Structures are given as structure tokens and as C-alpha cells.
């Protein structure tokens, strides 16, 4: 660009006389420079304040606290943990608890959500209205309220251990939680697990082989049924062949509480109930929208080709509906995982309650603790969306 001569803004269209002010490249560079400079300035200001404030309060910085002794107890530990363990162990316990409640919650929410979603499209008036009632009530009430309701108004008014409800023999329900018989494996029980893994692998292989064969020859194979039979029967067979090497240890009432057995905390139950019922309402709407998104012409085309209703559903409707359902479904799974952080309100030891709660209070290192907590959730979210983007590209309609 030649240097600016005597032109003013009125000749803006004239290339030789244009002011640098109207040059998009200059404007772009200047604008970006200003934005970055402002951002750096704000961040530097915050960092400086944080540094001086922390020094004044005498709070250590860095991640050294991870190897110190935690000194508090956690009510549900899936990894070995005592109050002598380190803060890092406590962090791991919280993380595992979060992942546990999220994964079981996702499973239950998906099952309920699909059932309710299909029920909302049912021809049956009663079923349709019931499903709609479920969705409209659960979806429009805050999750935190639902969690507190389950925890404080339902589970804590259950009878005390001595008057436990016993819905099945060996299963007790009281205000200390749900007490199940514990499964104790004798030597040889590991084989059952291996059998299960082998069955799943075989089912997967069969379905791939069946698909390849159908593509090549057109011959169909009932791979779903065969696979399911394998997954159920093979471990069962191993169980009996190895001489039933599994014992059930029933809980017994001793004094005021139960001894033995496997205890599911009321906090865990409340969180699981709340999360899965709430998310299921959203999943139901997604499923409904997905099925409705498959145009009627597709069903009619399938019928006119002579496909039976079941095959139409299986081969035409569901594959197309899934394409619409999967992306919002994943974001619901992410929401459920993020919402599991509400555990802190009812005292379930998830990562926020343990790490951003107790550990933060004990060490005072707010900046490190909060950033690490956020990074954990960010890692989960971003890796899921990366997977989703990949999946979307794979299943996206290839258009002209």
C-alpha cells in the first residue's frame, strides 16, 4: 500500500487515496493486537493480585500438598484409602466415585429415557399421557431440588435398621442405605469373568462376520440373538462346570446396625436416582424427536418394498433415528457427568465434595484445587466431544 496522500474519507473507494483506517489487514492486525493486549493485561493483573494475596495470607502454592497426609475419612472408597493416605489418594477416590455414579447413571438414564421416549409416541392414550406426565414434571424441576427431595424427604425417612424393609430375602432397605448380600468369589471364580469377556468378544466377532456376509451374499444371520445367548450362557456354563465357586454373604442385624454384606450409601442412591430420572426425561425427548425426524416417506418406502413392520423399524427407522439421536444424547451424558458434581449438596464423596470441598478447606490452596477440578471435567468433556466429532463425521449423510 502506498503512503497516504491528501485524500480524506470521502474518497474511500479510491485505492490510492484510501486511509490506512479502511485497510482490512491493518484493522485486523490492530484489533487483534488490542484484544490480546487487553487479555494479557487482565490476566497479569489477576495473577499479580493472586500472588500478593497468597503471600500475605501465607498460603503455599504448587502441587506439593498432593503428597501430604489427608487425615480425613471418606464414606465410600473404591480404591484403598484410610485417613493416613495422601491428598492424591483422596483425589483419586473422589474421581473414581464421580466416574462410578456417572457411568451407572448414564446406563439407567438411557434405559428409562428410551422406554419413556418410545412410550411418548405410543398409540396407547394412557401410556402416552403417563410418559408425558413423567417428562413434564421431571424436566421442569431443578435437579438439585430433586436430589435433596430423594435424600431428605424419601431416603432419610426410611425406617431405622431394626425395622428395615426387606423387599427380597437378604436385601435390606433402611435409613443407612441399601444392604445387599456380598458376592465372595472362591478360587476359580475368575474363570467366569474370563468367560464373560470371551463371550463378548465372540459376539462382537459374529456380528462383524454376519454383516460382512450379508453385504457380500445377502444372507442374513441372527447375530443379535446368538450374541446375547453367548453372553448369558457361556459364563453360566462356566459357573456350573467349575462347581459354583461363588458364595453370597448375607448381612446380619447386629445391635443397631447391619454387619457384613455390601452397603449402598443413601447418598449414592439419592444421587443415582436423581441424576438418572432427571436425565432420562431429557433423553426421552431426544429419542422422541429422533424417531419423529425420520420422515413418513421412509416408512412408506420400506412398506412398499415389502418389508415387515419389525424389519422396517430395525433396518430403516432406527438407523436413521440414531443419527439424529446420538449427538444430543452424548451432550446429555456429559450433562449428567457434570451434574454429578451436585453430590456435594447431599454429601456423596465425589471429586467436588472431596477435593474442591474438604481438601480445599484443609490446604487453603484454592487456585490449584479449583483449577485441577475444572481440568478433570474439561478433560472428560473435551475428549467426549472429540469422540463425538469423529463419530459425526463417520455417520454424517454423504450428500451431493
Amino acid at each position, binding site marked *: 500500500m502506498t503512503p497516504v496522500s491528501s485524500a480524506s*474519507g470521502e474518497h474511500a473507494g479510491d485505492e490510492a487515496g484510501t486511509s490506512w483506517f479502511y485497510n482490512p489487514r491493518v484493522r485486523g492486525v490492530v*484489533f487483534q493486537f488490542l*484484544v490480546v493486549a487487553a487479555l494479557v493485561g487482565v490476566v497479569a493483573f489477576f495473577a499479580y*493480585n493472586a500472588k500478593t494475596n497468597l503471600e500475605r495470607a501465607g498460603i503455599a502454592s504448587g502441587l506439593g500438598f498432593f503428597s501430604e497426609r489427608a487425615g480425613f475419612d471418606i464414606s465410600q472408597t473404591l480404591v484403598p484409602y484410610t485417613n493416613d493416605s495422601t491428598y492424591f489418594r483422596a483425589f483419586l477416590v473422589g474421581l473414581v466415585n464421580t466416574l462410578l455414579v456417572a457411568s451407572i447413571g448414564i446406563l439407567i438414564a438411557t434405559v428409562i429415557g428410551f422406554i419413556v421416549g418410545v412410550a411418548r409416541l405410543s398409540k396407547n392414550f394412557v401410556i402416552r399421557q*403417563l410418559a408425558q406426565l413423567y417428562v413434564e*414434571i421431571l424436566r421442569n424441576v*431443578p435437579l438439585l*431440588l430433586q436430589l*435433596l427431595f430423594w435424600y431428605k424427604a424419601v431416603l432419610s425417612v426410611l425406617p431405622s435398621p431394626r425395622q428395615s424393609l426387606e423387599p427380597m430375602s437378604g436385601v435390606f432397605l433402611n435409613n443407612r442405605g441399601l444392604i445387599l448380600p456380598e458376592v465372595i468369589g472362591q478360587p476359580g471364580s475368575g474363570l467366569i469373568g474370563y468367560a464373560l469377556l470371551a463371550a463378548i468378544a465372540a459376539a462382537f466377532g459374529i456380528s462383524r462376520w454376519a454383516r460382512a456376509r450379508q453385504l457380500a451374499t445377502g444372507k442374513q444371520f441372527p447375530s443379535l440373538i446368538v450374541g446375547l445367548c453367548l453372553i448369558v450362557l457361556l459364563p453360566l456354563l462356566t459357573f456350573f462346570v467349575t462347581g459354583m465357586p461363588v458364595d453370597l454373604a448375607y448381612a446380619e442385624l447386629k445391635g443397631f446396625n447391619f454387619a457384613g454384606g455390601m452397603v449402598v450409601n443413601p447418598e449414592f442412591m439419592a444421587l443415582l436416582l436423581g441424576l438418572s430420572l432427571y436425565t432420562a426425561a431429557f433423553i426421552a425427548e431426544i429419542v422422541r424427536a429422533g424417531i419423529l425426524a425420520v420422515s413418513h416417506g421412509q416408512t412408506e418406502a420400506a412398506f412398499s418394498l415389502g418389508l415387515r413392520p419389525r424389519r422396517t423399524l430395525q433396518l430403516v427407522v432406527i438407523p436413521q433415528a440414531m443419527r439424529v439421536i446420538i449427538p444430543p444424547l452424548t451432550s446429555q451424558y456429559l450433562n449428567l457427568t457434570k451434574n454429578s458434581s451436585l453430590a456435594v449438596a447431599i454429601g456423596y464423596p465425589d471429586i467436588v465434595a472431596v477435593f474442591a470441598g474438604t481438601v480445599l478447606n484443609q490446604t487453603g490452596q484454592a487456585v490449584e484445587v479449583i483449577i485441577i477440578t475444572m481440568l478433570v471435567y*474439561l478433560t472428560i468433556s473435551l475428549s467426549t466431544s472429540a469422540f463425538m466429532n469423529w463419530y459425526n463425521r463417520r455417520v454424517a449423510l454423504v450428500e451431493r
Partner: protein
Amino acid sequence: MDTGSVAYVRTEDAPQYAPPSTKTGAVGWIRDNLFDSVANSILTIVGIAILALIVPPVINWLFIDAVYTGDSRDACVVEGAGACWAFVNAKFGQFMYGRYPLEERWRVDLTGILLIAGLVPAAIPQVPFKRETVLYLIVVFPIAGFVLLTGGNVDISAGFWMTYAALSVILLAIVAAVCVNAKIPVVRPLAGVAFGVVAVALVFAIAAFDFGLVYVETQLWGGLLVTLVVAIVGIVASFPVGIVLALGRRSHLPAVRLISVIFIEFWRGVPLITVLFMSSVMLPLFLPDGVNFDKLLRALIGVALFASAYMAEVVRGGLQAISKGQYEAADAMGLSYSQGMRLIILPQALKLVIPGIVNTFIGLFKDTSLVLIIGLFDLLGIVTLNFSDANWSSPNTPATGFIFAAFVFWIFCFGMSRYSMYMERRLHRGHAR
């Protein structure tokens, strides 16, 4: 022709019989919809059984066995008593206003009326003056609400005014210098900046003016008031930020785009709880010594940042839905970027995303209940707080309180979701030919 001899040709219609009774009326409907096959009949029976199992006990507990009057727990601990509505009745004022002073509650009511006066004409598509109403809602109402709720009379020091004036002069000088250097007319940009500076000063002046209202600190706020304040401030503040972020994410400038993407994905990737923890624990660390934000304001900042990321994604959806021709047409007309956005793109895009904005608001409205975790007493917070009142502790109190709070939240959310569906249908109709 002699038609009479052809005996089998009818000359008039056969008499019409009523359809069989199994095909009409209630019976026909029931047969067609509920019992047309074995599977369907089983489903119907199961559904009715579920209803019969749930509905009578719930109705009994909620209404028939419920205790409506009484002034202590004694009324509600009776054997076989249902919901303890007397508790809600006694605490209703607290549930709505928190500990806001009794004699000042008219200010909250007035703020509510001002809000409704703006919202109703804004929400009904047929009412004219949309631009003015929206301006009222996002400029006049927040200032009036702030003054009414807190009492105004903010202590702004002379030093602040001096700094503000000095900064304004520097800003004006920079604008003038840039204009002169770039050899473009000076008057219009200067006037624009001066207008902005004066407008902001005016807002500060109103906030600092003594209207003779008693100061009510935010510690005393509570109940539905806090729920609405957090949700509305969150959504109003997130709106401009969200638009800027959405434009930034679609910008051609790499630095701007990168910053917007990182900002949006960061807030969307973390749960609101951690954001609230951050704003309540970390924010004080980031501020210079002596500057202290009130707890409610800290929560508001967290909520607004969080909501703006979601708002940005909603607005981006609208921007992407506008066809490329519109952008090209704006360029071809010789409009600058900001003119094109303000006059052509955003009016269309924002109209398209009204349902999305309402849905974001519903989500935010429900999420405001999380502020109880950082010690603010919104509706849910104040209801749970009152469970520990020994005067009202009974086995049915928690359930009653939760159901009351759930009902209030439900009314708001359900109403808004219906409105969003209505707008969606309306907008859809506009596009279909």
C-alpha cells in the same frame, strides 16, 4: 327409456344406519385406542394400575390428609397427617423475599411490577414498539431495579469521578489522534465515544443519587427474589457477552476466534458448581487488597460468565442459519462489518434464536438453585434452611417444602417452555411458504 323395469337399479340412497356402537363415542374410542390388541390391552391395564397405585395416595397426602392451618409443628405431627401446608403458609413471606425488611417489601413488589410491565409487551408478538420495550428491559429496568432493591445511594468517591473523567479525556484524545492520523472526519466518532462516556457516567450518577430509600444489604435478600435476580441478571448480562463471543467465534481474525473458542469451550466444559466455587473462593484472590465484592455479586459474575458461553452457542446457531447471501448482500451494499451485523444479520439471527434463548433461560433458572451450595439463600436454599426450624420440624415438613419449591419452579419453567414452543411454531410458520 323405461327405468322402472330395471328392478335392481336404485333410485335413491340406501338408508344410513348409525355406525355400530363399538365404533363410536367413548366405547369406540376406548376400543380403538386402548384395547385394539392383546399387547395394547396389557399396556393399558399396566398404565392404569400404575396410576391407581400412585395417584390416590398422592392426592390423599397432598390435599385430603394435609394440614392447612396451625402455628407450630404440633398441628403437623398428628398421626396420619399429610402435607404440612401450615408450614408453607407461615413461612411464605420468607420463601418469597428472604429476610428483606417487612416495611421495605413494597420495593421488591414494585420491581416485580416494573419487570412484568416490560416482559408482557416484549413477549407478545403482536404488540408494537418492540425496540423500545427491549431497550426498557435491558437499560431502564436494570437501573431502576438496582436502585429499588438495594436502595441506591452507592458510595462513589470523588477520586473515582476524577479517575473516570481523566480516563474519558484520554480515551477521547486517543480517538481524536487516531482519526487525525487516519485522515478521517473527527466529529462523528468523537461524538459517539463522548455519548457512551456520558451515558455510563449517568448510570453511575443515578446509582450514587440518594433517593431516600433505606439501604438493604444483599445478605438479607432471599427466596424467590434471589432466584429471579440471579437468573435475570445472568441472562441479561450474558446476552451481549454471548453475542460478542458468537461473532468472535465466527470471525476471520485467528486470535479473536481462538480466544472465543477457548472461552466458550472452557465454560461449557465445567459444571456450574465449580464455577460458583471459583467465583466465591478464587475471585477474592484475584482482586487487589481492599476491594471486596459482595457474595451475591460474586455469584452473579460466575453465573453470567457461565451463561454467556451457552448463549454464545445459541446465537452462533442463529448466525449459521442466516444464508450466505445475506452476508454477501451486506458487503455488496458497502456496509461496514458492524453496520452489516447490526442492520442485516443480527436482527434476523436473534429473531431465529428466541426459542433457544428461552431454553437457555429455563436451564439457567433451574441452575440458580445451585447458589445454595455457596451459602446464598435462593428459594430452594431458604426452604431447606427452614427445615431446621425446631418450631416446624415434623416428618412431613421436608417433603412439603420441597413440593412447594418444586411447584414454583415448575410453574416458571413449564410456562416458559410452552412460550418457547409457541415462538418456535410461529417462527417456523414464517419460513414455510
